[in-house]
C-alpha cells in the first residue's frame, strides 16, 4: 500500500513538473516567411499601380504581365514549402493557400481583361486586406516571446 502511495505521489509530481514546461500552441516567428509576405505585398502593389495607370491600353494585356505571375507564384510556392516544414504552422499554411487561390483567380480575370479602374481597385482592396491580416499575425508571432 505504502509503495502504491509513493508511486502515485511520484507520478503526480512528475506530471506536475512536466506541466511546468513551456506550452507551444502555435509556430514560432519565421523572419524568412515574414520577408516573403512583404515581398508579395510589394510586388502586388506595384502591379496594381501599373494596371490602374494603364486601363484600356495594350500595356495591360495579360501577355505583358506573365513575369509578375511567375514571380509571385514562385514566392507563394517557397512560402508554402517553408511553412510546411515549421511545426504548428497550420494557420499560416491556410493563409498561404487562400492567397494562392486569390492569385489564380486574379490571373484568370486578367486573361479576360479588366474593364475599369474600379474593377482593379476592388481586387487590390481584397489583396491588401489579406496581406495586412497575414502581416498582423506575423507581428503577433514576433512579439510572442516578449
Amino acid at each position: 500500500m505504502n509503495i502504491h502511495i509513493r508511486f502515485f505521489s511520484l507520478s503526480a509530481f512528475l506530471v506536475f513538473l512536466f506541466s511546468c514546461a513551456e506550452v507551444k500552441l502555435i509556430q514560432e516567428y519565421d523572419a524568412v516567411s515574414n520577408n516573403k509576405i512583404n515581398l508579395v505585398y510589394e510586388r502586388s502593389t506595384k502591379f496594381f499601380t501599373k494596371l490602374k495607370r494603364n486601363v484600356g491600353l495594350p500595356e495591360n494585356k495579360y501577355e505583358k504581365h506573365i513575369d509578375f505571375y511567375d514571380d509571385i507564384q514562385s514566392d507563394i510556392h517557397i512560402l508554402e514549402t517553408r511553412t510546411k516544414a515549421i511545426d504548428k504552422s497550420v494557420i499560416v499554411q491556410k493563409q498561404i493557400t487562400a492567397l494562392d487561390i486569390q492569385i489564380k483567380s486574379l490571373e484568370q480575370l486578367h486573361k479576360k481583361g479588366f474593364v475599369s479602374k474600379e474593377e482593379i481597385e476592388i481586387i487590390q482592396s481584397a489583396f491588401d486586406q489579406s496581406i495586412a491580416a497575414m502581416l498582423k499575425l506575423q507581428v503577433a508571432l514576433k512579439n510572442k516571446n516578449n
Partner: protein
Amino acid sequence: MEKNKIDVKELLHSMISASKDVLKKEWKQVAPVAELQIKNILHNIEQIAVLKINGKITEEQAKLHLTIQKESFKTILLSFEGIGIVTAEKTINAALHTVKTTINKAIGWRLL
C-alpha cells in the same frame, strides 16, 4: 430578397455571426477591427454586383471576383484565430513561469 439586389444589412449580419462562431472567445477582443474589415469586403461585393448588373462583367468574372473576396475574408478570420492562440499561449506560459519561480524560490535551487 429582390432579384439583382444585395441585402447588405442581411449579408453583414450573416458575416458577423459566422465570424463570431469561428472566433468565439476572441470575438469581443477583435470585434471593432473585424467589423470594419467585413464592411470593406461587403462594399467590394456590392461593387462587383453593380458591375455584373450593368453588364460590365460576365457571371464567370463575377464568380472569380467573389472568390477573391471570400479568400480575403478567410485570411482575416485566420489571422484573428492565430492572434487568439498566441494570446492563449502567452497567458499559459506566463502562469507556468509564475509556478516555476515560486517552486524554485521555495526549494532554494533551480528545479524547474
